[in-house]
């Protein structure tokens, strides 16, 4: 087999679900041992493509070739036998089973009537971990592992199954910088073994850094494939959306505005220490830092869900004693969680009910009943104000796209008329067009005098929205920067240093 034969080649691949065209004439190839990134907005067809290659969906048209040989029709078992492994974002691990068992789970499938050989499983598990350059206690139960460790287990499982091509869906989403580096090291080893890795990622800066080639998809079609050194984030974003997204710096000097939130000496053992900052009316304060720097923990404490052990929080001059998030909301602090799907919205319930969640007690009349028209009006009002695209507020939230779901969350919190709004990674999993929409909402709020704290991993996002950026590391504030006085590249260097 010459080096020119790609490991995987798709020709004219199309997939239709009823009347919906999920994939349209895709021509794509992945070379053996290549590190390839697949990018595109939500709904562009990335996951359908992966599932089709993994044999989950039969294609409507086109061919799939592996090492030059056509392989259709393909089913999941067949794809696996050919070396295709998919690691979904949820990792598909068994939280109640041990590391060894999770890695060697394939074992269970081959030997229906014979007893399980724990020894063989452990041997194969440790062999594979050694290949990855990793040690992990084989007897630990997976639910006790960190996200990064679980990812290693998922990859190890793929190797036991003798993968030749591994798809990874958003693998770096929950990793700290060190863990990302370790993952990249592993990917390097995989490459050395001739195993190709295809990443799906929203983090365009990482994509450019990690990949050898980048493929952009949009609306079910492949826009193109480029060597990573020929593209940058801006170009990719443009290709993904067809729009020119230009973020200009909006930072203003808010020093003269009156202070709204004064935090001093705030500490919570094991999470953050000596946090001092002042937030002013109408200011947008960014908090940057790697995952694990304590930002979310700080936010949860400001929101009353955790109690600080030292220090104080003053809102408009008054000291706050927050015993629960209800106290925080009453005082005027609102928090949009980073985990939108499980903590931000209640998917199965209606949009209207989700919006009124935090304010419903105040809507009740003297009998304790919530008037129907007040309820409808609140919902319709916010649907209009935040331009949530939906024919009726009675629909369940799960019928909305990620960006619209996030607007529902915003509506819920804005309805509480907060003085301080804390946004924790608000645009994760939101496509580019909707991201801009959310930035517009933030700018609008700031103009109206609401103070905003924006926690984010994306430096460009912080630069596009904030007046000031605090940098946290290991639970402390280690720096402050003003966008414009420092470049994005410098900021990134500081963070990743």
């Amino acid at each position, binding site marked *: 087999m010459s080096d020119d034969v790609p490991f995987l080649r798709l020709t004219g691949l199309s997939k239709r679900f009823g009347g919906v065209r999920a994939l349209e004439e895709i021509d794509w190839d992945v070379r053996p041992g290549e590190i390839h990134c697949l990018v595109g907005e939500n709904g562009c067809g990335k996951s359908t493509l992966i599932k089709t290659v993994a044999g989950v969906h039969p294609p409507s048209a086109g061919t799939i070739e592996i090492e030059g040989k056509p392989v259709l029709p393909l089913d999941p078992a067949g794809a696996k036998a050919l070396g295709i492994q998919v690691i979904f974002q949820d990792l598909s691990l*068994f939280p109640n089973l041990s590391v060894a068992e999770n890695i060697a789970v394939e074992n*269970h499938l081959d030997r229906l009537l014979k007893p399980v050989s724990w020894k063989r499983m452990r041997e194969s598990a440790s062999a594979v971990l050694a290949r990855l350059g990793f040690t992990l206690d084989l007897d630990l139960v997976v639910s006790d592992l960190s996200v990064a460790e679980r990812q290693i287990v998922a990859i190890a499982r793929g190797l036991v199954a003798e993968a030749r091509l591994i798809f990874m869906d958003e693998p770096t989403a929950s990793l700290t910088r060190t863990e990302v580096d370790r993952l990249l090291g592993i990917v390097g080893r995989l490459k050395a073994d001739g195993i190709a890795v295809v990443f799906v990622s929203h983090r365009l800066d990482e994509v450019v850094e990690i990949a050898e080639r980048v493929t952009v998809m949009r609306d079910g079609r492949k826009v193109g494939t480029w060597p990573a050194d020929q593209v940058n984030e801006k170009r990719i974003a443009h290709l993904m959306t067809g729009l020119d997204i230009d973020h200009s710096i909006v930072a203003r000097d808010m020093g003269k505005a009156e202070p709204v939130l004064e935090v001093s000496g705030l500490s919570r053992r094991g999470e953050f220490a000596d946090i001092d900052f002042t937030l002013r009316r109408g200011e947008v304060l960014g908090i940057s830092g790697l995952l*694990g720097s304590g930002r979310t923990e700080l936010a949860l404490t400001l929101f009353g869900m955790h109690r600080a052990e030292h220090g104080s929080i003053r809102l408009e001059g008054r000291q706050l004693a927050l015993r629960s998030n209800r106290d925080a909301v009453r005082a005027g602090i609102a928090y949009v969680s980073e985990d939108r799907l499980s903590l931000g919205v209640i998917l199965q319930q209606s949009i209207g009910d989700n919006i009124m969640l935090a304010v419903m007690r105040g809507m009740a009349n003297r009998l304790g009943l919530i008037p129907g028209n007040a309820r409808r009006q609140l919902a319709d009002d916010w649907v209009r104000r935040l331009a949530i695209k939906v024919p009726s507020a009675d629909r369940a939230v799960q019928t909305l796209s990620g960006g619209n779901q996030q607007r529902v969350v915003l509506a819920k919190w804005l309805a509480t008329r907060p003085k301080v709004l804390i946004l924790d990674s608000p645009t994760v999993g939101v496509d580019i067009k909707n991201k801009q929409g959310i930035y517009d909402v933030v700018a609008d709020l700031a103009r109206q005098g609401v103070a905003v704290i924006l926690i984010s991993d994306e430096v460009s996002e912080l630069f596009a929205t904030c007046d000031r950026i605090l940098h946290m590391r290991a639970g402390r504030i280690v720096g402050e920067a003003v966008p414009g006085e420092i470049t994005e590249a410098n900021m990134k260097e500081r963070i990743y240093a």
Partner: protein
Amino acid sequence: MHEDSQMAAGSSFLVQLRRRPEAWLLAVIAVVVIVFSLTARDFLTLANIIDLLETYSVQAIMAMGLFVVLVSGGIDISFAATASVAQYCAALLATQLGFPAPVVILCGLAIGVALGCLNALLVHYVRITSIIATIAMMSVSFSLLMYFSGGKSIYTLPDWWTNRVVFWRMETASGDIVRVTLPIVAMAVVTLFTWAWMTRSSVGRQLYAMGGNAEAARRVGMNIGRLQFVAYGYLGLMAAIAGLLQAHRVGESVPNAMYNTELAVLSAAVLGGASLTGGIGTVPGVLLGIVLLAVLQNGLNLLGVSSYFFQIVIGVTILVSTSITVISSRPGRRHRIIAGAPSNG
């Protein structure tokens, strides 16, 4: 991170033990046994213990079957009804039609398995959630049984069924005769088999996997439907065995004898650490659960406490032990950010 996992593993055997419900249970049982052996005469005698084993053998066998279903991520409360139906039908075959022993036993077991598979069908193909499906099945089975039997017991069971089968007998110092009989042996066999099956066979491990994460199990290629039929079918089989043994012990087939015993068996399984959500639980744990309930009831009996009081004791025991096990197994970790070691962050 590496040090994290080292820390977690090395972070003492005792801490790990503290999180296991079986350990707590053993401790509680030990305390109870000590209390009773001091206060109740004849509690800690061999005769009493063997007697206890025999009395609870039927429930223990059902508990093993229920355990398998719980581990697979489902729940089934129709097993007592299944046991009764299997028992009664077998009794009919033996008395009305005079079938020989092997046929009767096989038919009884087959009925149990069939009812179990019916549950699996409802859960997997009709997609009814297991508690509702099995509640419905239980209502249907018991009601039909009571209707067709007219509530009448069958007293005339053949000798091969009701004659006591003794595997071992001995006379104790105090003149009591201790017999290890069929129910005890059956319980031991079933328990060992279930334990071996769930820890050492691939099907057993697949059941654990499915209980832990059914979606992942599907993706890895496990046949979820088949596994569910295996789990519920196994419980049906266990229920049938229990039903046949029950008739063996008491010498007659009473249609509603096992009515309302589901909750006791479920309590034992849950006390023993089986999780209602699936994927968690061990055979020793379930056994300990039964042991605790048995010991409590027996001890109170010997103390002359009215049997009415026993319900109260069960209730308190369930409340206290489930609260303790949930609270003690909560990890309660904070993100260790400042300590320097990166964590879940």
